[in-house]
């Protein structure tokens, strides 16, 4: 394991201790405290994952997230205070994969990062799934809709794969949090809701009237008509 993490956090103490922790956990870390600098560095090196603070000088974390998503489907984990959870939802809507609230213990952060990275490495090799006009190839990490490639983040891909593997089964948010995000117990259900919204935006003909991923009110989601 030698994944390269771009850590963007403006507080020097947090930046240093997080770098230390991530390095001890076996990651290679490039750290910066500035949004613009973060974008410059992101464009220079290949990274496997970005850890991004919401509040940053010069260019805030949400803008950085938007810029990165414009160019790449790289996994992004946001750092935020609980009082900034509104910003976190915006970050998730912009395509962040997960978030960790401050204050956090390093093992928490490491666990979240590993969970996200696990999503972007191919699972047990399965055959491609072809359902409702979608071709989902777990090995190649690709989704084609009507012959065209659809660019999905690792989280969106896992979510689609879990749902499409068992069409018509209703998945509770908690189950999806467990299957996709690896939360063993009561994660934030907004992770699921926002990811489903983004996924619909990419694969549905009309995201406002979804046909593929249906909401089961008060319960969760399912793939296709029940």
């Amino acid at each position, binding site marked *: 394991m030698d994944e390269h993490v771009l850590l963007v956090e403006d*507080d020097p*103490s*947090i930046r240093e*201790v*997080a770098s*230390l*922790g991530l390095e*001890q956990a076996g990651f290679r870390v490039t750290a910066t405290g500035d949004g613009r600098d973060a974008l410059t560095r992101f464009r220079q090196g290949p990274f496997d994952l970005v850890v991004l603070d919401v509040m940053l000088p010069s260019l805030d974390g949400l803008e950085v997230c938007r810029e990165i998503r414009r160019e790449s489907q790289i996994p992004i984990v946001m750092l935020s*205070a*609980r*009082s900034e959870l509104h910003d976190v939802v915006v970050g998730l809507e912009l395509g962040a994969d997960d978030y960790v609230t*401050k*204050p*956090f*213990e*390093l*093992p928490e952060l490491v666990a979240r990062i590993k969970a996200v990275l696990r999503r972007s490495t191919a699972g047990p090799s399965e055959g491609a799934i072809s359902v409702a006009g979608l071709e989902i190839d777990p090995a190649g990490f690709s989704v084609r809709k009507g012959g065209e490639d659809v660019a999905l983040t690792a989280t969106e891909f896992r979510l689609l794969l879990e749902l499409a593997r068992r069409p018509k089964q209703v998945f*509770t*948010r*908690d189950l999806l949090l467990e299957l996709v995000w690896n939360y063993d*117990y*009561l994660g*934030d*259900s*907004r992770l699921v809701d926002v990811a489903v919204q983004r996924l619909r935006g990419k694969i549905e003909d009309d995201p406002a009237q979804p046909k593929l991923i249906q909401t089961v009110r*008060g*319960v969760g989601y399912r793939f296709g008509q029940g």
Partner: protein
Amino acid sequence: MPLRRRLTIAFMLAVGLSAAALAAGSYFAVRHTLLADSVRSGERQARRNLAIAPVYLSQGTDQLFAAYGRGAAGFLTVGIRRGRPFSSSLGASVREVPAGLRRLVGRGDLGYERTSLAGDNYLVVGGPVGRDTELYFFFPENDLRHELAVLRNILAGGVGILVLLAGFAGALLARQTLRPVGRASAAARSLAEGLLETRLPVEGRDEFGSWAQSFNEMAAALETKIADLSAAQARERRFTADVAHELRTPLTALVGEASLLAEHLDSMPLESRRPAELLVADVGRLRRLVEDLMEISRFDAGQESVHAETVELGALTASTVRARGWERRVQLEADEVELTSDPRRLERIVANLVGNAVEHGDNDVAVRVGSDGGPFVEVSDHGPGIAREHLPHLFERFYKADAARSGGGTGLGLAIAQENARLLGGRIEVWSEPGEGTRFTLRL
């Protein structure tokens, strides 16, 4: 009875009674005058009739009746002469003359009395003629009676109309008078409902005017006082939120550093290991405190929202207990109760209540999940219990029932749990008996 109706009725009574007294007085005065007039003119006519009677009687009663003018006389004549009755009309006879009058006339006096004949009213005036004859004249009084009846009706009608008018006027007056009272009570109600800017219009310089002024002064004082209080409270809460917020960044660094340190405790020299352990534990305590402070200030700012889903309360409680590693110390008895609520908040509440019980209640904590009118979670322990004087304050922030037993809590746990319960439309109840134990019940 409302004051308005009482005032109206009193007004009607006053007007009605005085009008009735006035009307009755004038009616009886008029009646007396008219009847006396009638008697006077009857008597005059009778005297004249009696004076000329002896001349004509000797020629027979018909001569007498002729002299009186027959039917045009305006009166009927009956009489009795030497024991034989006679009459000018078929409708009347001496038998119709009242007995009292007969006795009076029998004694040789002139007299009168009123009587009715076949439904008509008459004034009967009689007197003797010589020794052997009595004459009685029936003067009709129907017209007089009719006039009196008309007068009576007019007066009664007038009184009735006056009473009605008095009713209207009284109601109007009462409403006018009592309007400030109604307005004042509406204003007091709206003050009580929290509309502190409520004021009364000050009209006129009467008692109501100065009353309204005092009311307004009171409302203004109240408004200022409450505005001051809530500004102070908002400042205080803002300050708490700011402090918690500002603590967050250094705390994040601290927590990170402590968790790095925690991984290397074993490789530390013995003399620095214990302080490092304490440091790690204290950073954890500080973290919990700051997180609780931040959470309670979010409640104060009204920033908390509910993410409702279908929840099975029994399963949620079971997994809460399991996730915290309490299953060995907790007897769980859970029915299947489904509801729509926010599972994360429910989890927080249940974890807090069970955590408290596990901390204070020795090892036999019982948790019951069920439904009686509404879903509930009941957490009871057989610990030392809580003294009665502490019970009302248990949900206050930083309230410690027993300073020596403050334990590892932040002092905000129950306050947060109660806020969460309220946000979910429920409440937490507490029962405790020193020596027997404590029972917290979350009702939804």
